[in-house]
């Protein structure tokens, strides 16, 4: 399963143009605390968060996550988008709540 599959399954809106949608997903990590993601997220996981500031890109790049999904209709800041394109990190947004997005990904990853 790759990021593109998740995007389609959840009808996500992909905001970046340069991110790799074929990136394989190893799992999913949900957290809004950067220190927590730095400590516990695993390579290849897709990250669900409400945070929209530029630091999320640095974290995703450092941990080699497969992408970031921002929920609750939040939009990434302009600086965040710039950094994401530079680092080729996929950022997708959704009106779904974190609980719903996580729940849906849980279901599709289990199959």
């Amino acid at each position, binding site marked *: 399963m790759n990021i593109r599959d998740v995007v389609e399954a959840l009808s996500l809106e992909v905001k970046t143009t340069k991110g790799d949608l074929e990136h394989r997903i190893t799992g999913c*990590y949900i957290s809004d605390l950067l220190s927590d993601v730095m400590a*516990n997220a695993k390579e290849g996981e897709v990250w669900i968060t*409400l945070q929209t500031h530029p630091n999320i890109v640095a974290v995703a790049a450092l941990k080699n996550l497969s992408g970031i999904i921002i929920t*609750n209709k939040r939009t990434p800041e302009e600086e965040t988008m710039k950094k994401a394109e530079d680092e080729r990190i996929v950022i997708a947004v959704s009106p779904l709540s*974190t*609980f*719903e997005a*996580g*729940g849906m990904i*849980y279901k599709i990853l289990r199959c």
Partner: protein
Amino acid sequence: MTLEKVREILEGELVLDAGNPDTEITSVCSSDLMSDLLHFSSEPKSLLITGLNNTQVIRTAEIADIKAVVFVLDKRPDRETVEMAKQKGITLVVTRLSRFTACGRLYAAGLGSCTGVNR
């Protein structure tokens, strides 16, 4: 489903029992950001799943009328937090599961999201 059933599904440990384990839970809020909790419409049957385990969570939960909090990844609340939850009548559960797995299991079990406002 009851709070007790939720605890079972999450293989959680009841750190503070503030009330009736038969409390009916119909929806789940999952967030580490406090302002986000304050967005949710009045949902007395709501449960919060979070990785943030300080007293702020309890204060915010009280203001948002949330009756039970689940801490993930074995993040145990400190004594001050437990004491505050006791005073405010908020049940605390700790689970070793990640926020993703916890949300996943409860979503699969049929609970809904408590985000009313952003739809």
